């Protein structure tokens, strides 16, 4: 069965040896078979029926024809009618065999495609649940290769290797039984010949395997080189490095050729050697069997010998096939191993229990609409509250969502050994604008990633409206935070859908209002299909500034009380920048905002500016205070003038 894509036979960077293949195989079979047990049993049954009806019955018919009917008719003990009956019976058997093999093929399609669907769904589902750390520590290419190469090797195993394996085993067993019935003595000879075949195969495939390992290494080296050079091709041109490049490439290319040639050579000669050994086996059996039959040893009849010889040929094929499938099964195991590694990755844990609910304010009578209590409601009121269940006394309290964020002596490191943030203390009261400035790697983005718990802190506390963020359900916490990331990512779909990403049930008008707020409306309307313009390839057809505006609109529609804005540093022209800036300013109104700023204009009017250096807040205060302090901020600020 041809599979989707004639993708390369070996996945990139594949390790040809698998640790603990038995364990993986067991797990794989469990994973594959459990859901589809009934179907797999059907497949086994179908294969059994097919082998019996076609291989055994079909072959036996020839024997009967040559041994019983033709001589019988010649001798007058049988009639043509008898032969016709026999042919009819055989035909019926074969028809059953054909039907069952057809049924098997249909079921296999279902199993194979269903298995792939399950595999992909499970992988994707699990992947979505993984923490950001996973994506930081695994190259995106490697993750993609799981979905393409590894799923493909698994497909090959399920659709080809396993059925062939089953088929071969069932054939071997049933044919062997028939052969033993015909002549146990000859069977010994057959077994010896098969042993010789297996030993040769093993020897050669061992050699070929050694070269396949080498080939894999060579492929890896070449791929690495090619990837690097292709992405740096323009630099290569600028430095006239083409000749040196070709020289290096040739070396790797020739190495790959050498190992590929050897690996293929040995793999190629296994088949013909086995085929000819099969012929030799035929001759040996004919001679031994002939002598036995003529001398009347072991009660072998000449007709039976002919059948035996036919069976013997039928035995060789599945044995060859098994040895050929071994390789692809090992490859699939390696793929399975990698897929299981993904599935075994620990998902993001969420022990939070404080949830975000719609709420309404109930004013105390006589308080002149100043004092109120918060009550939960089903309507969407625009007022939100944290529903906090206290285990200790079994009470539930509500706290209005306001956007008050406090960092209390927070330490954080991406790895245990290396801390990137030290003793971070800060507080933002609702509606305040907090700016972070500092050099690359100072930890600005990291701080914002802690608020929405992309990463968990090692020490200290982060409180949101007075609640420890660890107690808040992650989904609800993130819903209450709007983020515009420095790197804008858009999804395949229309502009409308991309903005709606921030609030899935938003109406078209709401989307347009958000776009207007973000200053995106005017450029969107100038796109060929307006809001229905399709974006593909991460919005490749838009400029950087336009993508940024869409990301702002996307955050705007979510209407969160707290905003995190990571300003784009990449070159946006002054005009678009003004638009982006205005969009952001409008969005910030009335919200607690954390801004990672690169432009002074954004920072100046902040309620508080944090200057970060090497993971520590070294200065804090308003613009005027910091200027007065004449510290780092002053340096950064005036650096422009000095530089000029």
């Amino acid at each position, binding site marked *: 069965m041809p599979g*989707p894509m004639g993708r390369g036979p070996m996945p990139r960077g594949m390790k040809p040896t698998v640790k603990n293949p038995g364990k993986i195989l067991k797990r794989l079979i469990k994973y594959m078979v459990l859901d589809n047990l009934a179907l797999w049993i059907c497949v086994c049954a179908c294969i059994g029926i097919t082998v019996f009806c076609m291989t055994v019955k079909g072959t036996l018919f020839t024997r009967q024809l040559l041994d019983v009917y033709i001589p019988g008719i010649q001798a007058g003990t049988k009639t043509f009618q008898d032969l016709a009956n026999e042919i009819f019976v055989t035909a019926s058997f*074969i028809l059953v065999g*054909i039907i069952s093999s057809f049924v098997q093929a249909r079921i296999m399609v279902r199993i194979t495609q269903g298995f792939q669907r399950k595999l*992909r769904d499970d992988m994707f589902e699990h992947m979505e649940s993984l923490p950001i750390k996973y994506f930081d520590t695994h190259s995106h290419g490697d993750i993609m290769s799981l979905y393409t190469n590894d799923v493909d090797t698994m497909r090959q195993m399920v659709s080809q290797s396993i059925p062939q394996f089953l088929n071969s085993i069932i054939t071997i067993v049933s044919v062997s039984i028939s052969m033993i019935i015909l002549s146990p003595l000859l069977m010994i000879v057959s077994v010896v010949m098969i042993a010789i075949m297996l030993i040769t195969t093993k020897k050669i495939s061992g050699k070929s395997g050694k070269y396949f390992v080498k080939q894999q290494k060579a492929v890896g080296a070449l791929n690495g080189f090619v990837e690097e050079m292709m992405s740096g091709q*323009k630099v290569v041109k600028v430095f006239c490095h083409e000749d040196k490049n070709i020289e290096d490439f040739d070396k790797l290319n020739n190495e790959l050729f050498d190992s*590929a*040639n050897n690996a293929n050579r040995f793999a190629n000669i296994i088949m013909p050697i086995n085929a000819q050994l099969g*012929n030799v086996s035929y001759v040996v059996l004919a001679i031994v069997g002939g002598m036995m039959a003529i001398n009347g040893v072991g009660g072998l009849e000449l007709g039976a010998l002919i059948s035996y010889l036919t069976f013997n040929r039928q035995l060789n094929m599945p044995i060859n096939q098994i040895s050929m499938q071994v390789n692809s099964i090992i490859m699939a195991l390696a793929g399975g191993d990698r897929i299981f590694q993904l599935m075994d990755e620990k998902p993001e844990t969420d022990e939070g229990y404080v949830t975000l609910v719609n709420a309404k304010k109930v004013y105390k009578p006589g308080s002149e609409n100043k004092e109120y209590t918060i009550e939960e409601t089903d309507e969407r009121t625009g007022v939100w509250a944290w529903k906090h269940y206290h285990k200790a006394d079994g009470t539930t309290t509500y706290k209005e969502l306001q956007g008050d964020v406090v960092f209390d002596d927070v330490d954080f490191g991406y790895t245990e050994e290396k801390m990137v943030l030290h003793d971070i203390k800060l507080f933002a009261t609702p509606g305040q604008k907090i700016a972070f400035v500092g050099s690359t790697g100072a930890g600005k983005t990291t701080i914002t990633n802690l608020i929405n718990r992309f990463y968990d802190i090692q020490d200290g506390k982060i409180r949101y409206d007075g609640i420890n963020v660890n107690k808040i359900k992650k989904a609800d916490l993130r819903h209450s935070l709007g983020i515009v990331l420095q790197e804008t990512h858009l999804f395949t779909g229309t502009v409308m859908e991309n903005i709606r990403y921030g609030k899935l049930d938003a109406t078209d008008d709401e989307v347009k209002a958000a776009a207007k707020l973000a200053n995106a409306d005017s450029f969107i309307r100038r796109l060929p299909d307006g809001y229905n313009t399709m974006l593909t390839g991460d919005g490749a057809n838009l400029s950087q500034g336009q993508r940024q505006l869409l990301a702002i609109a996307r955050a705007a529609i979510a209407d969160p009380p707290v905003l995190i804005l990571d300003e784009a540093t990449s070159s946006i022209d002054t005009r678009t920048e003004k638009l982006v800036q205005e969009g952001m300013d409008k969005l910030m109104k009335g919200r607690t905002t954390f801004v990672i700023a690169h432009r*002074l204009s954004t920072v100046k009017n902040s309620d508080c500016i944090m200057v970060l250096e090497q993971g520590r807040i070294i200065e804090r205060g308003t613009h005027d205070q910091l200027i007065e302090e004449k510290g780092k901020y002053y340096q950064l600020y005036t650096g422009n003038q000095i530089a000029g």
Partner: protein
Amino acid sequence: MIRRLLSYVKEYKKESILTPLSMIIEVAMEMVVPMLMASLVNDGINARNEAGEVVGDMQHIILIGVFMIVAALIGLAGGIMGGVFGAKASTGFAKNLRKGMFDRIQTFSFKNIDKFSTAGLVTRLTTDVNNVQNAYQMILRMCMRSPMTFVIALVMSFTIKPSLALIYLIAVIILGCILAFIISKAMKAFEQAFPKYDELNASVQENVNAIRVVKAYVREDHEKKKFKTASNNIYKIFSAAEKLTTFNGPAMSITVYTCILLISWLGAKMIINTFEVDLNLGDLTALLSYCMSILMSLMMFSMIFIMLTMSAASVRRINEVLAEEPDIVNPENPIMEVKDGSIVFKNVNFRYNKDGKENVLSNININIESGETIGIIGGTGSAKSTLVNLISRLYDVNDGAVLVGGKDVREYDLEVLRDEVSVVLQKNVLFSGTIMDNLRWGVRKKKDGANQPETPQEKAEIEAECIRACKLACADEFIERMPDKYETYIEQGGTNVSGGQKQRLCIARALVKKPKILILDDSTSAVDTATDAKIRKAFAEEIPGTTKLIIAQRISSVMNADRIIVMEDGKINGFGTHDELLKSNEIYRDVYESQTGGNGDFDEGGEH
């Protein structure tokens, strides 16, 4: 298309011819064997005495046995040769294809490179070549084999019994038609299905890249739902396509067994002399075994056909690279020396797309003296990069001319020109290797005796030169703080140095060339303003004779230049000194005001 590809077989032509020839030997022997088997059964095992009783003839069995073993040996020789030659021919072909493509890519101009994505080129060089290699091997080994088996088996059958062999011929025609029908249907289905499959993978890719957005908006469930729908669609489409191919097996089996039963029946009748035609048991055995060979070969053929069409996409993609004509090539009698660092743009128009109507650059006229420092400023898309890329002839102008050292850039030897005009690209890359290895990229090739290994003295000189360049680019200070200094290993893509460090290394690399013209295309955007200023100061003091073009977003990076070009929509909006522009140029004044006086920019600063 195929012919162009095949021209890369080159030195493996011999093997490519020998492989099918060897396979013919193997097939021939494979066909002789059933004949011998027939004889063995017929005149050996089933030999009768005068009384007509089956007694067997041991001598005959042994004689034919010996023949069979000889045939097996010859077949083995053919098979092994086929395997060996086939491996060499196909892997060699793959090697040549890779080399062909890689060499071709090296000749590509920027315009050619822009056409292909990096990932696309990598796939072509790896997966696609691999597909073609496998397909080629299959063609050589199997494609010859199947028709040969088919023809020989059919001929043999006819020599045994033309009337019975006729059954095969009819069966073959019927089966052939059925298979062709099924396959053409299935292929169409698969062709429609593959793009969907690619789409699915694209959506995974998108999710992996944008995982932070997904998580920030808590859209995991939304994405899962989207993915499930897509993967279910794939399930349906591929199931439908594969279901079509499940008809192949039954069609084949029905034909084979109909033939076997028919021949058994008719054969039996003939043997028993009802039709007065003589046919013996052995012949019948042989006929039955040819039956399998013939129909199997047809089946194989159909499989091969499917596999080949699947590799057709790879063939097409490889061909795209091989057929791509580099649009910038060396002139015939190139000028080998650049006189000085002066640059002149004369009525230059430029479009990325030849047939495009809108000029990216239009009517550019500039005169830059040798040794001048020129700042270039302007919004994104105002074609600043495009402008400077024309100087080292990374692109060719459509109208007008660019002159360097008084001569049209199209008259220079490309290497000479690019050595003298050193560009630090906006999207720059470092390569895996030590810092020194990376800097050495800037070392010019020796003009004569290029293959001689460098002497220790030369090595020391080169390294001293590299260090000097690093000092100029303010890279020395951080390199010296690294544990292995200049021997520090840079990971692929330069991931273990920061953005600002990377940019400084790239500048140093360009300086090693000692060019007459140095172009910095937004190359200090990640370097803090103080270091940026230091670098510019070093340039002014250490390499005053070099013409320097500096593209920047930051006004402070350009305002001290001798003259400044203001770009807007592919046109020159202003060209003059800082003071002049401040007075006369609105855009310049706008940018200046927005960035200074409390509106400046910290931009990723502070890497000291």
